[in-house]
């Protein structure tokens, strides 16, 4: 069973190959093949899950990928508790979203290609989680980045989509540099990049190197998971079709950063500082994401910032080390269910509303779309932590663990997580109220393409996956957390879950405190949006609480400013150059001389004499430098 686990990857990879290379010949049945391959992987994963004991990791080497001298990189898979959980999540949620896409993309002429990209994504993501070395992980890492890039830019006729795709790719590249450097450092100090060898040898290398590796891995994780300071691409990525947002930018790919840190647990266990930075990044991002989430009227952007915020929770959890690895993964799983469900619900609403995303134009949809409303409502209750639903167990467990830290850390991290729970209650309630309750504002207006709105319930092929995900949103949390089921299962892979005994707040109080704070957020939202009607246009002159929410746009501006800080200046610079140079040229304008590249370009005059001069200058410099090195 384990020996042929490469089949897990092979099914969707083959599907992608057939769909992308087969061309129009496969149009008729391409979407079915796309679903079938992912379902096949899911079934294989299930059988693997139930037929195998995961007490220890089993590595299988498929073939020797890059053997050169001392560097041996094998292409191998690692089946253990952590990877099999991810396999089930990816193929399970993936299969549901594939099925949903049959309906959602039914009008798209290129539906077959869409499924090809989705299969490519699933295959890459499986390589990412199944690889048994950091290089194999990097392979999957780049693969999902590519698939994500292609899918964000799916609507080719929208310039915003192209820009968003580019932004995502570039920000991810920044993270990738971190990951690549971490891998190179491992090779330098340990001489290998395989998990087994790295984790065995990590204890023998200088502590500074361990911290450096940990921080570089974190940079990679931040890029992929939309964590501060590399979060800005994720909301823009919502330009892609909604199933993509659900699968890639909510449930699976963006959680790869959390996976990376959980996978590298043996490294992080050795570096207190590294873990602290992870925690700080997580805590900061979860607050940032939730605050900005209040400011948008675009239903998908709100959900996107919600994702940023929820992944912040996961990062916070895995940053707590043995106290939190299992909790982070648990929240990742339940989040995979309810956030995918919320996105599919949002997609269903958009599908019914001529692809409109502005919530101010919705309202009162619950009677028109009962199934969507019900499933969305369950996802909503799960994310705000309604007692005994999924979010209640997994999110509260993280908040509890955060308060379980000693001293200032307990107060700061626990406080941030708690506060964000309240804000989550606020913005999610606002979203639900604006969309499903209140007056049917869409009756008086037309959509941007001039059509009337005729909301209707989506076809079964779309609602069925939503129902399945809703069930998961309700029950998964309890099933995973009660009795430490997930923690015990994951123990062989990430170590046993530790319980803190010196927390700043007693365990028993925290869940109810969280519920209280969330309820406050919900109540505030109801007071503002539930009791009175919402204008279709964004009101400009408004009362204090709404203005406070508006100021969160300022938070977004802050966010933009922070993006421009040193860690990213290079990317920004490149974007700047691109806008000046290429877009200008494409628009028929001459490439502007602005920007360093333009200035340097002037050196390329076309005159042989100046070329010769620059060669001479270079020669003089080289010879002078050689002589100086020698005689200094």
């Amino acid at each position: 069973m384990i020996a042929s686990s490469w089949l897990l990857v092979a099914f969707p990879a083959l599907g992608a190959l057939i769909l992308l290379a087969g061309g129009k010949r496969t149009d008729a049945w391409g979407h079915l093949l796309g679903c079938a391959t992912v379902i096949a992987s899911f079934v294989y994963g299930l059988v693997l899950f139930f037929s195998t004991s995961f007490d220890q990791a089993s590595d299988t080497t498929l073939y020797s990928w890059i053997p050169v001298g001392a560097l041996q990189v094998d292409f191998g898979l690692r089946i253990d508790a952590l990877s099999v959980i991810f396999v089930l999540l990816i193929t399970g949620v993936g299969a549901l979203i594939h099925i949903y896409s049959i309906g959602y993309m039914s009008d798209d002429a290129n539906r077959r290609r869409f499924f090809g990209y989705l299969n490519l994504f699933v295959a890459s993501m499986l390589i990412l989680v199944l690889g048994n070395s950091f290089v194999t992980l990097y392979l999957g890492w780049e693969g999902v980045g590519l698939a994500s890039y292609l899918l964000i830019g799916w609507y080719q006729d929208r310039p915003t989509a192209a820009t968003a795709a580019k932004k995502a790719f570039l920000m991810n590249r920044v993270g990738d540099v971190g990951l690549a450097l971490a891998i190179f450092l491992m090779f330098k100090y340990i001489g290998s990049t395989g998990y087994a060898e790295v984790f065995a040898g990590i204890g023998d290398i200088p502590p500074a190197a361990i911290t450096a590796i940990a921080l570089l891995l974190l940079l990679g994780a931040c890029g992929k998971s939309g964590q501060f300071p590399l979060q800005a691409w994720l909301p823009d990525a919502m330009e892609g079709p909604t199933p993509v947002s659900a699968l890639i930018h909510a449930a699976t790919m963006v959680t790869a950063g959390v996976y990376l840190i959980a996978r590298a647990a043996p490294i992080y266990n050795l570096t207190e500082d590294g873990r602290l930075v992870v925690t700080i990044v997580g805590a900061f991002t979860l607050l940032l994401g939730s605050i900005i989430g209040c400011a948008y009227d675009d239903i998908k952007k709100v959900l996107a910032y919600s994702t940023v915020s929820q992944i912040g929770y996961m990062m916070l959890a895995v940053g707590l080390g043995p106290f939190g690895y299992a909790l982070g993964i648990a929240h990742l799983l339940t989040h995979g269910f309810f956030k995918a469900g919320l996105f599919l619900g949002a997609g269903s609403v958009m599908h019914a509303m001529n692809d409109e995303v502005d919530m101010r134009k919705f309202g009162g949809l619950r009677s028109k779309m009962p199934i969507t409303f019900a499933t969305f409502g369950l996802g909503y209750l799960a994310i705000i932590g309604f007692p005994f639903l999924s979010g209640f167990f997994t999110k509260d467990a993280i908040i509890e663990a955060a308060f379980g830290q000693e001293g200032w850390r307990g107060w700061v991290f626990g406080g941030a997580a708690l506060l964000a729970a309240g804000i989550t209650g606020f913005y999610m309630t606002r979203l639900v109220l604006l969309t499903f309750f209140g007056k049917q504002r869409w009756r008086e207006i037309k959509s941007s393409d001039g059509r009337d709105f005729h909301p209707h319930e989506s076809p079964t092929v779309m609602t069925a996956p939503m129902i399945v995900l809703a069930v998961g949103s309700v029950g998964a949390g309890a099933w995973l957390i009660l009795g430490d089921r997930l923690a015990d299962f994951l123990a062989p892979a990430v170590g046993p879950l530790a319980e803190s005994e010196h927390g700043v707040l007693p365990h028993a109080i925290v869940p109810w405190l969280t519920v209280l704070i969330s309820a406050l957020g919900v109540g505030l939202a109801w007071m503002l949006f539930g009791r009175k009607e919402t204008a279709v246009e964004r009101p400009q002159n408004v009362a204090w609480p709404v203005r406070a929410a508006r100021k969160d746009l300022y938070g977004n501006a802050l966010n933009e400013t922070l993006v421009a800080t040193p860690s990213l200046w290079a990317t920004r610079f490149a974007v700047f150059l691109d806008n000046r140079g290429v877009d200008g040229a494409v628009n028929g304008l001459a490439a502007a001389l602005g920007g360093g590249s333009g200035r340097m370009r002037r050196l390329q005059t076309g005159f042989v004499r100046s070329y010769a001069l620059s060669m001479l200058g270079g020669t003089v410099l080289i010879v002078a430098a050689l002589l100086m090195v020698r005689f200094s």
Partner: protein
Amino acid sequence: MNVFLAQQADRIELPAIDYAAILPMLIILGAACIGVLFEAFLPKHQRWPGQVVLTLLAIAAAGVALGAYVGGSPAEGTTTLSGTLSIDRPALFLWGTLLALALGAVLLIADRSIEPGGAFVAQAGIAPGTVQDRAQVGSTGMQTEVFPLALFALGGMMAFCSANDLLTMFIALEVLSLPLYLMCGLARRRRLLSQEAAVKYFLLGAFASAFFLYGLALLYGYAGSVKLADIANATAGTDRSDTLLFAGLGLLMVGLLFKGSVGPFHTWTPDVYQGAPTPVTAFMAACTKVAAFGGMLRVLTVAFESTSWEWRGVLWGVAIVSMLIGAVLGLTQTDVKRMIAYSSIAHAGFLLIGTMALTEDGLSGTLFYLLAYGFTTLAAFGVISLVRDSTGEATHLSAWAGLAKRSPLLAAVFTFLLLALAGIPLTSGFVGKFVVFSAALSDGMAPLVVIALVFSAVAAFFYLRVVVLMYFSEPAADGPTVSVPGAFTTAAITLGVAVTLLLGVLPAFALDWAGAGGFAIS
């Protein structure tokens, strides 16, 4: 050379010649001579088929001879022709690479279906802009001299890679350069640009050759010999003038860096890549780079290993400058051929990093990188030659907007090649970068690797730009058409793409070959 030794009265000891070892080179140069005779004696209409058959046969035969020799060749290599040529494992690998790349380039050169009569001018001697010149655009003849010229250049490159003394190296440098200068000026369309490129390349090339020669002279003054091994021995002694050594090394390196289009000696690259006929650009970009870095590897490893501490810092600077120029200037290019030219400058910087790591891993990594990069860039230029409008190739980037809608296959192939240039996994570019960077890292060049990673991230941006343009932009109203490639071009592009994919997925065999042995030191 040996006839000069005739001052001794008795019979002269003849140098031993290992004909089996140098047979591939002899075949190529011999076929080039026969090609010249074809030009002289075949009637006009028979020249093209004759030359194509001869050239392809010669490359195939050289490949067979190489394959036959490799099996039984000594692992530590051998020197022949009085030690002027060193036939060792790296040389054999480079020969194989050169032959394979040249095969692809010749296929591109031979294609006459995209442009009636081929990409080469019918009468190079006619002044551009005249009535006769306009008339010849429509004619279907071409200067078939380009085939023997390509073979001469190829022979020079092979000699360059295995030259074991600096004088042989210089001769080889000229043998490979002179035909290239000429070939640059033979474009059928945009004659002025093409001739300008040829003159620029010639002038700057002569300039660089002069530097090489000065360096050679200074090194001779230092070591009393032009043999690489003798120079290495001389550096071990202590009572000589280091000024001669380092000034000589610096000037010598300038000549080599120029050929490898490493910044700041890259200035010719964009202009020449743009102006030369695209098949010739493909030949230059792929093969010249292989030869130049092959020569650099040998010179640095065999002759200057013991002084590496002194020169490495300087080459660090050169590598950084090259990556900077390539990556940053590439961002604002609006011509796709110039963009690939800047990409090649950035790649030259990456290659230099591997070249500097004088370890086994550095050698094999760089050799692998050359192989990978050569095929990718060859196929990329093959694709570029297909996108055309009424005035010839449409190389301005604005013409490439929305190309994916018109020709999805071409856009997909080009995207794949660009991803390979950017170093995305499962392409040969990733494996190449990986092996080169890890070799550099284990040889203590961590900061340089960091810088290289940053620049490769920046460079990824302008590859991506083209992808965005092809997929996410509206096609221009009077945009170019994509020619249906003939069998030759199809074969060349397929070869490049297949190798790029193969080396990304299963690089083990090529890495094994690249790491089969070091340079012969004698």
